[in-house]
């Protein structure tokens, strides 16, 4: 076991744990963001540099600070390590720079992107980025490519996290796509136009942190925050498929099926293509109940009652403010006595 201090919080984790996973044990706002690291995928991480942290003391034996910021997702902890994440201004500044770098060639087409609302890059930029850009040049663009019957590749949005490459390598029988080209001309591709259609390939949609790989059966059907996630399962004949899924409802219709994601957006149980693309009737599934969605997520926005304001407070407000509230109510007003505008 190794004891480390992360942002002033002590935590004890087994040897060989990465700094990021130690921080996730603490949880909450100290956890560094991760755009490319994906716990179930071996070899992932270290690429996006979003999770860079400062190691103020290397270990109890050698308490010198590390000369550069390190990627917390791949750096193992040492006993006595002192790590600074949100407590280091340097880390916060660098992270702002990483957002900028990731966004300069991103199309920022969130209004028409299916991933909006559950996009890691969107959340990352919202939390750590700035609202303006210093980039004036032309952005890199690619043509949309249909890769197979289920998946569309929108390379312009890709941040080259390599997650889908690792998924195809480790979860499916054969990988037919990879990264071609280098530098900012690098792209996900199949070289000779190949279809991504083997059994577990649908999982690349779930692991994609942005809207580069989207589900063709769901494209442009609905904004995710208007749909309602429900956990369900079925007996799947495929031996590797867990059959544990989240169904995304709009009214009575199942618009899409995804694997279940944990609080860090990671899929722990892979599902097969049949469960994901073919079973879109409630009758196919055993419903378990509403899926947990983080309160801060935009997907939660329509699923909760608006906060209620005490009428006593309203009585104390100046009349002009009350009139303004009447015309443009940001909150639902009401109370036990049934006062309501």
């Amino acid at each position, binding site marked *: 076991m190794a004891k480390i201090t992360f942002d002033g919080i002590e935590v004890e984790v087994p040897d060989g744990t990465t700094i990021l996973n130690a921080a996730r044990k603490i949880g909450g706002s100290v956890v560094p963001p991760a755009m490319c690291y994906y716990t179930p995928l071996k070899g992932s*991480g*270290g*690429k*996006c*540099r*979003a999770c*860079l942290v400062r190691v103020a003391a290397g270990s109890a034996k050698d308490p010198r600070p590390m000369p*550069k*910021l390190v*990627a917390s997702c*791949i*750096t*193992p902890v040492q006993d006595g390590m002192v790590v600074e994440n949100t407590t280091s201004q340097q880390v916060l500044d*660098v992270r702002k*720079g*990483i957002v*900028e*770098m*990731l966004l*300069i*060639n991103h199309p920022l087409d969130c209004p028409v992107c299916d991933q909006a609302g559950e996009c890691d890059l969107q959340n990352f930029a919202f939390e750590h980025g700035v609202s303006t850009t*210093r*980039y004036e*040049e032309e952005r890199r663009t690619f043509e949309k490519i249909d890769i197979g019957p289920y998946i569309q590749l929108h390379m312009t949005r890709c*941040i*080259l996290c*390599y997650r889908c490459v690792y998924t195809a390598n480790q979860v499916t029988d054969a990988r037919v796509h*990879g*990264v071609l*080209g*280098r*530098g*900012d*001309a*690098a792209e996900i591709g199949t070289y000779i136009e190949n279809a991504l259609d083997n059994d577990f390939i649908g999982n690349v949609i779930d692991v994609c942190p942005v809207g580069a790989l989207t589900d063709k059966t769901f494209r442009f059907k609905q904004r995710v925050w208007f749909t309602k996630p429900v956990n369900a399962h079925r007996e799947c004949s495929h031996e590797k498929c867990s059959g544990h899924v989240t169904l995304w409802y709009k009214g009575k219709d199942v618009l899409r099926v995804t694997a279940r994601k944990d609080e860090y957006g990671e899929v722990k149980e892979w599902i097969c293509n049949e469960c994901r693309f073919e079973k879109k009737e409630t009758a196919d599934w055993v419903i378990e109940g509403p899926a947990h969605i983080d309160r801060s997520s935009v997907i939660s926005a329509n699923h909760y009652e608006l906060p209620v304001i005490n009428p006593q407070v309203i009585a104390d407000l100046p009349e002009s403010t009350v009139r303004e509230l009447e015309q443009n109510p940001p909150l639902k007003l009401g109370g036990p006595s049934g006062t309501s505008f």
Partner: protein
Amino acid sequence: MGRKLLTEHVNVEGIETFAVYRKHGGYRAVEKALKMTPEEVVEEVKKSGLRGRGGAGFPTGMKWSFLAKPEGVPRYLVCNADESEPGTFKDRYLMSKLPHLLIEGMIAGSYALGARTSYIYIRGELLYVLRILEKAIAEAYAAGFLGENIQGSGYSLDLHVHPGGGAYICGEETALLESLEGKRGNPRNKPPFPAVQGLYARPTVVNNVESIAAVVPILNMGGDEYAKIGVGRSTGTKLFSACGHLNKPGIYELELGVPVEEFIYSDEYCGGIWKGRELKAVVAGGSSVPILPKELILKTAAGEPRLMTYESLSDGGFVTGTMLGSGGFIAMDETTCIVKNTWNFSRFYHHESCGQCSPCREGTGWLEKVLHRLEHGHGSMHDIDLIVSVAKQIEGNTICPLGEAAAWPVAAAVRHFRDEFEWHVTHPKEATQPGAVYRGNLVMA
């Protein structure tokens, strides 16, 4: 003229053949090494104070002693011959003229590290050098210096040459190993370091061509004797590939410690700046090290004469110093436009970035685009600060040192030649005339 340890016999007719090389004292180092224990060979290299000749200047003996040696697991020595830094061409020269010197160094090095199979990873463009090396290796096999039971010592070694696909990034040691394994040449995350998990996840040492070649004179003359050459911690001799606006560009083997001024102006070496012009700036160690203006390359900030050593060139840090790097010495005369030159360098890094980690993939392209704008008279003052800021965002935040290599030259050019960048902004018409150069920052002799 100082002593020459590597290139002493370089002009001998037929030195690339085994027979002639052997006649001039070749393979004595191997014979000597095979009589020593591997530990003694490592100790000898440690004593010599030899520092890596590929750019970073890490002590070679120390690198060798870091190699993990688990029982029953093969170890590898890999020679990094993927020399592709703009301004550096020493390894190509060494390999094409003296292939047996490298092979001899590889045998001695592999013996010291206990490697039974070793590789020379050569840049794909150097196909003719590859042919020379393969011919030399075949000769060495025939003479019993490679293969089973070398010279009856019981030690066996196989040596392979592997050509790369011509990517600069494959000169980074972990990207080189990936490429050698047949994968895409992306640098690996560290740790684990190659000394623990390198080629095929086995302990591996990756050394530059010149470092490995330098093992031969070290063994021949003894580590202590080798350490006496040079100044302080910069021991021995080093090849410098001088290029640019010099009267006599070319490869020079120097005892470390020659003053920079002597190297540029003495007739023994580069013979001064061509066409009787003034020196404007020097990039002392290949395109990735910071550029220095004339007054800082000849003398340190403290007014001491600058010497061709690791320490002296980096005196003053990056504020007033640079690095020895790989020894690619690029001299620029008064007609050189620093903005154009910086743009050219960053175009190279943009092209060669592997695209794996985001600061380098996006940042190198951004730098190039803004520098292109500045060079072509469309820039603003704000752009000058922008490139400094972008360079800072790349530096230190990437997986491998290519990020720094792309950021340093840009930051240094603005640091030392800011007025020239500003002139491009304030005088766009003049600046875009063919051959137009800002001369306000020249130091006249």
